[in-house]
């Protein structure tokens, strides 16, 4: 065993966790190496000191202050919350809380499915071509109007819910429709 092996096993020796064979080899090295002997002695002294505990102590009124804090903290919480955590109150059991959580998730899922916005179609539905009549009409840009870019405004046509909520998405969608129409032969 060399000094680096000794350092790896030092802690296990302090915790009485070395096997008989390793312990013997550890002690053999210890007898012949003054540096490792000093290292181990120092580690033992530090460990002993850590175990002796701290001289600092808790304030004598610690528990009273804790109880006071619990009272004020709980008083600030809403009544339904207090019913959940206060001992002696008709609190809900963990099983009931689990049931409530499942019910809440079910309500959320139903709400999402009912109010899910209609997604804009990625491709134009078959049969709905320009030959069948444009879904919107083009209005030439007026100088000084709110649309000076020259890009045609769209006054008709149905925007999806998402597009109505998000102006950027709506404008982009309209421009793409315009480009696709203009680009056709």
């Amino acid at each position, binding site marked *: 065993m060399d000094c680096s092996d000794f350092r790896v096993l030092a*802690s296990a020796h302090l915790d009485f966790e070395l096997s008989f064979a390793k312990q013997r080899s550890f002690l053999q090295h210890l007898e012949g190496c003054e540096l490792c002997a000093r290292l181990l002695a120092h580690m033992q002294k530090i460990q002993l*000191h850590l175990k002796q505990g701290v001289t600092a102590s808790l304030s004598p009124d610690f528990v009273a202050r804790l109880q006071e804090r619990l009272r004020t903290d709980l008083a600030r919480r809403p009544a339904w919350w207090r019913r959940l955590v206060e001992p002696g109150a008709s609190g809900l059991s963990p099983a009931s809380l689990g049931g409530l959580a499942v019910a809440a998730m079910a309500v959320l899922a139903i709400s999402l499915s009912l109010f899910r916005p209609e997604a804009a179609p990625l491709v134009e539905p078959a049969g709905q071509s320009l030959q069948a009549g444009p879904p919107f009409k083009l209005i030439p840009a007026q100088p000084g109007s709110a649309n000076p870019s020259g890009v045609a405004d769209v006054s008709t046509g149905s925007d999806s819910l998402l597009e109505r909520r998000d102006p950027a998405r709506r404008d982009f969608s309209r421009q793409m429709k315009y480009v696709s129409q203009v680009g056709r032969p």
Partner: protein
Amino acid sequence: MTSHEYTDEELITQFQAGNESAYLELVERFKNRLFSFIYRFVGDVDLAEDLLQDTLVKVYTHKHSYREIAKFSTWIYTIAGNLARTELRKRRRRATFSMSALGLGGRELELPSTDHTPSKIHEGVQTEAAIQRALGQLPLHFRTVVILRDVQELSYDEISKIMKIPLGTVKSRVNRARLRLQEILSNLDENRRNKD
């Protein structure tokens, strides 16, 4: 049957069922151990007391989070350790935390003694300050394991559960932490000798 005959796990079960005196018994059982754990961690008495209070309030308000699959001590040490680590990180970010602020600057390293004469008591205080100072210089993951193992004397298995790391990692980390602590204290001692 007195409350001393109940295990910690039985007491928290009673508290979950609404028995507040079971909570107070748990507070009595753990307050000093946890205070010493947190104090060793943060090195400041007032902060340690505040964090201990936060821990015990959390036990009160989150009592239903405890499940009997783990030891109660593992659960409460996890709460205290997390709060202490979070606080230390916050302080480090604010750059207001320094060992000099703890009033430990310039203390000397002395070895522990069982002699209780005034001079020896003074030396003991200095040693404690030096140890505390050295602990403060350890990285958090080393500090945590060395405090749990050497101050709280918890088993490797329990430390593994508290820190959520494998048993082998706990053992190697404890070894490296002890060696690092020894190295820091040797340097402090050497500095003191050079000053003398």
